[in-house]
């Protein structure tokens, strides 16, 4: 009988220990509100909201300017000049672009991280997005967007903690990278790219999600970034 009581005691201790460790793990995630840093959280939301409003105001101004310019362009020469400017802006990423191309979709792994593995391999990082863009450009992509953000020549893909940002705007997974260009060339370059082979390896071994799909029609919005044409002079 004593043996049975001893057995139950040991079993209770072990079970309790294991449950305790599990619970400890689940509450170890840092939560801003739980930390009492509500001020910074509110400030961040406030600044983000006012930035979005400012962006909308600027978009409205751009539309008004376009309208006024169209009213002024009274002859064919002026209209052709405005078209030339719009084409250049589109090439730089600041005008809507429509065409065929493909979409690459990347997302974090849904799998649990194995004890021996580095969690790094289960996540999509900002450097992956930069590398995908580089590969797509090598395949002749004329325009690219990540999520809702159109890339321009000077676009930056960064991260703050685990949050990936494109031109200062947060992008949520799954990351959809749309590229306009010859779909065959783009698909070929993806097939032969060593970077994509590495992603496939991560997909097979760590479960990151990777998809490539050719699309007959893609519409890329203009970049929301400010076009900075200051700080340099054009030489003849």
């Amino acid at each position: 009988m004593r043996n049975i009581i001893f057995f139950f005691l040991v079993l209770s201790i072990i079970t309790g220990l294991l449950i305790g460790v599990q619970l400890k793990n689940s509450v170890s995630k840092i939560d801003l509100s739980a930390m009492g840093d509500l001020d910074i959280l509110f400030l961040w939301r406030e600044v983000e909201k006012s930035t979005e409003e400012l962006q909308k105001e600027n978009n409205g101004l751009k539309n008004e300017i376009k309208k006024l310019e169209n009213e002024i362009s009274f002859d064919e020469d002026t209209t052709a000049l405005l078209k030339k400017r719009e084409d250049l802006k589109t090439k730089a990423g600041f005008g809507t672009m429509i065409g065929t191309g493909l979409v690459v979709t990347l997302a974090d792994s849904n799998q649990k991280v194995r004890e021996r593995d580095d969690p790094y391999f289960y996540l999509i990082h900002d450097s992956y997005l930069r590398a995908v863009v580089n590969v797509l450009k090598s395949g002749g992509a004329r325009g690219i967007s990540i999520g809702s953000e159109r890339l321009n020549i000077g676009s930056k893909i960064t991260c703050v903690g685990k949050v990936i940002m494109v031109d200062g705007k947060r992008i949520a997974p799954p990351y959809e990278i749309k590229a306009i260009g010859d779909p065959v060339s783009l698909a070929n370059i993806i097939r032969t790219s060593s970077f994509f082979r590495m992603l496939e390896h991560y997909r097979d071994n760590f479960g990151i999600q990777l998809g490539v799909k050719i699309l007959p029609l893609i519409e890329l919005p203009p970049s929301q970034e400010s076009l900075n044409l200051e700080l340099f002079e054009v030489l003849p």
Partner: protein
Amino acid sequence: MISKPNLTFIALCLFITTIFTVMLFKTRESIYREVGPTTTQEAVSYLKELNIKKEELHKEKESLELRKRQLSAAYVEKGEFIDLVNNEINKLEGYLGYKRVSGLGIKIVLESPEGYIVSVETILDLINDLWSSGAVAITINEKRVTWETYFELTEEDLLMNEMEINQPYLIEVIGPEDVIRGTMYMPGGFVEKMQLRGINVEITKNVPLDLPSRGD
């Protein structure tokens, strides 16, 4: 007193214990990606980025309002308007790399004493940092970085648009020098990362630059 143990109960206990053991030793917590900052440090960094963006948008708003006022004036000189658009086209061609550009900026020289080839990731990282600190034109070994620019690494060389670029890598950048320099030298920034890999980074600022077009 404890009655004779029920075998089913013992089995159940063992079963639960086994599950927890497996969970603990075979897995860690599942990955959960936040779409907003989760720590104070992250929130501060994000806030900093947002404030830079907000400042840029304010500047853009000012110039857009000025443009609107000019266009809304009762009488717009046709010649004046065409000059304005032509000037913008000229600037856009410079920005896209179709034309040579000049301005003040910085020079960065990267060199590995052991002849280590800089990876594509490092170059993309550097260019990303330069754009994010306000660069308006960049060249690497006198070749202009444009929308069409891409990099590849072969066994022996780093290629830029399929052309070999060799050490020392000379990166010339037109843009706000102090901001660019500050970004390069920030803790955990590009210079620190390169030093950890044994790559020398030399930065010279306040340099008058004349950068070639993409065809040069």
